[in-house]
């Protein structure tokens, strides 16, 4: 595993500079054409003490872990944990996977997330990257968007105070513009993603020392 030069979170293979501990990022773009992939790539950690907790809402835990591995994640059940709320799960006997019956159960998701976070932390993986892949089902299943606001304050609060990294994927075309703008306010920065003839571009808003113009993902920094 790589030795860190400082405490900032790095992103191997992406044209992004390191970000400060406690940062939460909103990744926006077409989910099936880049945003989901980008979210998973941001969650890959090469740190010896790095862990990942994934809140999977758009696919079951098995699919999510396969996708995570395909995009560079290392599957180790002590350091990679999943809260599966996609309503598609079969038997999931592993301690590293929790299930919540519906994306509407924000309280259950939050408690399971904290539980998995604590387990990751107790295993010695104290630099935890948290992913919400994706936020859309949570918004769609909530009768009142304020419940999602409270959930986001709680998750980003834990990320911020525990010096973690938060990544939340959202397809802006799936929601009213006002809702997307409101959601963006819970995050320190926004990574926009687009696919151009199969190649991904990204740009960043809200964070210093990051590419603000569309930048090919393969270019590196």
């Amino acid at each position, binding site marked *: 595993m790589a030795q860190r030069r400082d405490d900032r979170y790095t992103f191997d293979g992406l044209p992004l500079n390191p970000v400060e501990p406690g940062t939460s990022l909103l990744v926006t773009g077409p989910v099936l054409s880049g945003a989901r992939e980008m979210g998973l790539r941001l969650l890959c950690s090469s740190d010896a003490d790095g862990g990942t907790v994934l809140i999977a809402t758009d696919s079951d835990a098995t699919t999510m872990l396969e996708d995570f591995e395909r995009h560079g994640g290392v599957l180790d059940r002590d350091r990679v944990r999943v809260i599966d709320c996609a309503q598609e799960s079969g038997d999931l006997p592993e301690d590293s996977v*929790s*299930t919540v*019956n519906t994306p*509407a*159960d*924000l*309280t*259950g998701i*939050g*408690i*399971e997330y*904290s*539980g998995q976070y*604590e*387990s990751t*932390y*107790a295993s010695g993986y104290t630099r935890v990257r948290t992913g919400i892949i994706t936020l859309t089902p949570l918004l769609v299943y*909530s*009768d*009142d*968007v*304020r*419940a999602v*606001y*409270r*959930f986001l*304050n*709680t998750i980003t*609060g*834990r990320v*911020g*105070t*525990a010096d973690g990294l938060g990544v939340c994927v959202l397809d802006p075309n799936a*929601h*009213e513009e*006002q*809702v997307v703008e*409101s959601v963006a*306010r*819970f995050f320190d920065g926004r990574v926009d993603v687009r696919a151009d003839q199969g190649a991904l571009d990204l740009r960043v808003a809200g964070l210093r020392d990051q590419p603000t113009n569309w930048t090919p993902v393969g270019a590196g920094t």
Partner: protein
Amino acid sequence: MSDSPTVLCAQPDADERAETADALGDAGLAVEGVGSLDTLTTALDRSVDCVVTAFDLPDGDGFDVVDAVRSVNPACVVILYTEHAPSDLPRGGPEQVVEYVPRTVPESRERLADVAAMAAAEVTQAAYPIPETETERLAAVQRYDIDQLAATDAFDRLTALMASHFDIDVAFVGLMDEHEERFVACEGANWRTLSREDTICTHTILSDETMVVEDTHEDPRFAAVDALKQLNIRSYAGVRITDEEGNAVGAVCCTDGEPRRYTQTELDDLQRFADEVEEQLLLRRRLQGGS
């Protein structure tokens, strides 16, 4: 009075409660211990920064605690500290999102103290977005004597003029404190305060752009807010007001019981009313001696 963040700790067993309180105290928190939902409810007020609770109490459970806390202090952080695994807990309502620290992890009290100390100092469980500079913003709001401002005729005259000019039901000037919007003047209704999570203005203060909601029933941010229905707010236009340092202290707003659009000329006029309110607020704060 202590400057330390205040934590209420609810655990039924006195010995366990004392041990938890010691761990929280060692983390620099001012702790008050309670043994039941009833005593917790009595001890609750808006000065509490964080509530740590067992799930099983003699007269209720952890979600009853969440409800009690949210009714008094909607943004307060609540942490469930329990030996129950998440899957063993009953399902809570979507408004009962909480933090959770399992007692089964090693050195759980120390871990709880870490989470509580961080939460009490920096985190909110509010059901609305918080401005980036909230601490400075709240300090700016506290420099205004809202009761004295509410007794000032100038704001009543301005809001009366607004209601007439825009032909709307209600015009108001509100300042947004930590928990609620407090109305300095309100023409067309007798509103004094409104819980922050129920206001549209909590969104208005986030941006220097005029906030227009043509139909609250069609806006997913507000369609489920019962308080807006009860106050007959179907449409809204608001401009944030700032102090001389740029802190968003409140908003100047129009509401109506019917869906409504605003022309650019009307929005320009609303901005002028807001500019006037800003000047009046600044002058009156200086007259109050708040500099």
